[in-house]
């Protein structure tokens, strides 16, 4: 029996199976099973305040979600938040990469500094910005007043028009470094010959950026766009700490809605359905970015 197995699967395949097994085992328990289980939950009407009756309802939960006005508000908020976060993060990251890609004294120090936001825990990040935005004692009011940009102190996080952008600002601060690092590495991989050739052809700084740097940045930018989108669309920590969805529903994003639906209303079925909608959207978006932008950029 063993001999037959050995003949069917060679040394390579047996080793591979052995080497991969531990990871597969762990991921089955803590990733695959919960993912499938949550799909099962999304097909049942499970409300924790009524624990014994959990009828199978097919895709009713999904239909209920699509009928829910809060869902569409959350979709709009999430879209604005994600687009702003990803766009500004990428833009800033390119600028920072251009700066750090230059050779000048202190360059390494700046690069070390770049890792500080990346290493800051998101809870502390939220705390830090909440304190900066503080309506009475915060830094933002003091600085803007001193610069003469505002006339009196404002309640920053209480302004529904600004809340999402202010939270996005905190997220951008933390996310920009990794994006910048990825872009720097891509820049460093551009052969110097290209720049020399462009110089010989009489191209200035701007032309060199447009014709040499930016096309070569494509793979790095792709990675940044996909990764940042996947991360931003599901942000949760900052919302819990800074605004809890408020003021009103100004920062009511999908992740926050899922949290409220599941842990405050205890409607696990619809919560799971929303999670699946969010996961599918993330997946399709990443795929689309790779597919379409990847060819054009």
């Amino acid at each position, binding site marked *: 029996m063993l001999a037959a197995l050995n003949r069917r699967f060679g040394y*390579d*395949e047996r*080793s*591979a*199976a052995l*080497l*991969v097994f*531990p*990871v*597969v085992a*762990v*991921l089955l*328990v*803590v*990733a*695959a*099973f919960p*993912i499938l289980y*949550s799909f099962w*939950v999304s097909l049942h009407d499970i409300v924790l305040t009524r624990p014994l009756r959990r009828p199978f309802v097919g895709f009713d939960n999904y239909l209920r979600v699509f009928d829910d006005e809060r869902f569409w508000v959350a979709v709009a908020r999430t879209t604005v938040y994600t687009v702003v976060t990803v766009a500004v993060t990428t833009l800033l990251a390119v600028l920072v990469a251009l*700066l750090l890609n230059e050779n000048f004294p202190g360059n390494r120090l*700046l690069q070390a*500094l*770049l*890792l*500080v*936001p990346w*290493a*800051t*825990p998101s*809870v*502390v990040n939220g*705390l*830090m910005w909440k*304190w900066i935005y*503080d309506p*009475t*004692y915060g*830094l933002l009011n003091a600085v803007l*007043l001193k610069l003469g940009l505002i006339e009196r102190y404002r309640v920053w996080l209480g302004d529904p028009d600004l809340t999402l952008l202010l939270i996005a600002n905190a997220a951008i*601060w933390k996310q920009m*470094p990794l994006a910048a*690092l*990825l872009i*720097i*590495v891509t820049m460093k991989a551009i052969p110097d010959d290209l720049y020399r050739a462009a110089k010989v052809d009489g191209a200035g700084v701007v032309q060199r950026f447009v014709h040499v740097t930016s096309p070569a940045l494509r793979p*790095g930018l792709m*990675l940044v766009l996909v990764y940042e989108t*996947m991360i931003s669309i599901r942000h949760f*920590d900052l919302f*819990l*700490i800074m605004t809890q969805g408020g003021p009103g529903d100004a920062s009511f994003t999908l992740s926050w809605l*899922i949290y409220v639906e599941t842990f405050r209303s205890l409607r*696990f079925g619809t919560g*799971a359905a929303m*999670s699946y909608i*969010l*996961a599918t959207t*993330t*997946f399709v978006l990443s795929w689309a970015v790779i597919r379409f932008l990847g060819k054009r950029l």
Partner: protein
Amino acid sequence: MQATPRRPIAPRVLRGALLFCFSALFVLYVAGPVAWLVSSSLQSEAQITAVPPNWLPPLASLANFEAIFTAADRQVTYENRRQGDAATGGFLPSGAANLLPSLWNSLTVGIWVAVLNLLLSVTAAYAIAVIDFRGRRATLYTVLATRVVPDIALVVPLFLVIRNLGLINSLGALVVTYLAITVPFTIFILISYFEGIPRDLYRAARIDGCGHWGALRHVYLPLSLPALVAALTFAFLTSWNEFVFALVLTQNVQAQTLPIVISGFIMDFTTSFSFVNAAGVIAIIPPVLMAVVFQRYIVSGLTAGAVKG
């Protein structure tokens, strides 16, 4: 190597000035918020509530940090309960004594996750990158696909799984959960690194009589030190920073990690900001130190996959 001709002086001065301006802006943006956090953690409650604010602590004091480290020794009794009055600044939140234990919890979980993550990922990444076996692509895609589902969606089913295993409110549950987050990304990094190692080295090792285990130990591991250090750091930081799972899977100081305890302070409106800021500074120090010390490895390790696209 040919020397670049010296450029005329005016453009060089301009370039220097531009670089300096942008560097200054960069430092202000990246370090400013943290500097303000540190500055206000060194001030008393009365000082941080001054308007306009004190940019630098007028009298730098470690009182907030001292309060955190001695919170466990303090006993609140009926007689002394009024000493800690919010207005006079000595007020400590009721959970202050939980900070130190949660710091240890965070460290313990972080170290376990870093080590186990590496052990699990190295073998799997080697198999996927080097061995040509049936189901290789499927394995890779399945591993990566587990990260598409948002954490908030995994929390409920994972809570039920962990509860059925009887592991709620234990550090072990956190370790296993965090592995699910770190392993796919680590495997991704290591695969790109392993694929960059010349195939000839692998063949030579096999000809010399090494099995896969030998090739991994004698060829791949020694050559991928940067990626291994990056993976260790990344796993530790992810575990140290994680919030959603810890929020749901832990219930008290026996297993709560630092972010959970700190977020509790933030929600508590009576807690003084100077105290919370000090807690925040404590939570920032280990990850930032680690990131700066291992800077070189992190940059080359985390970005190994980026160049290929």
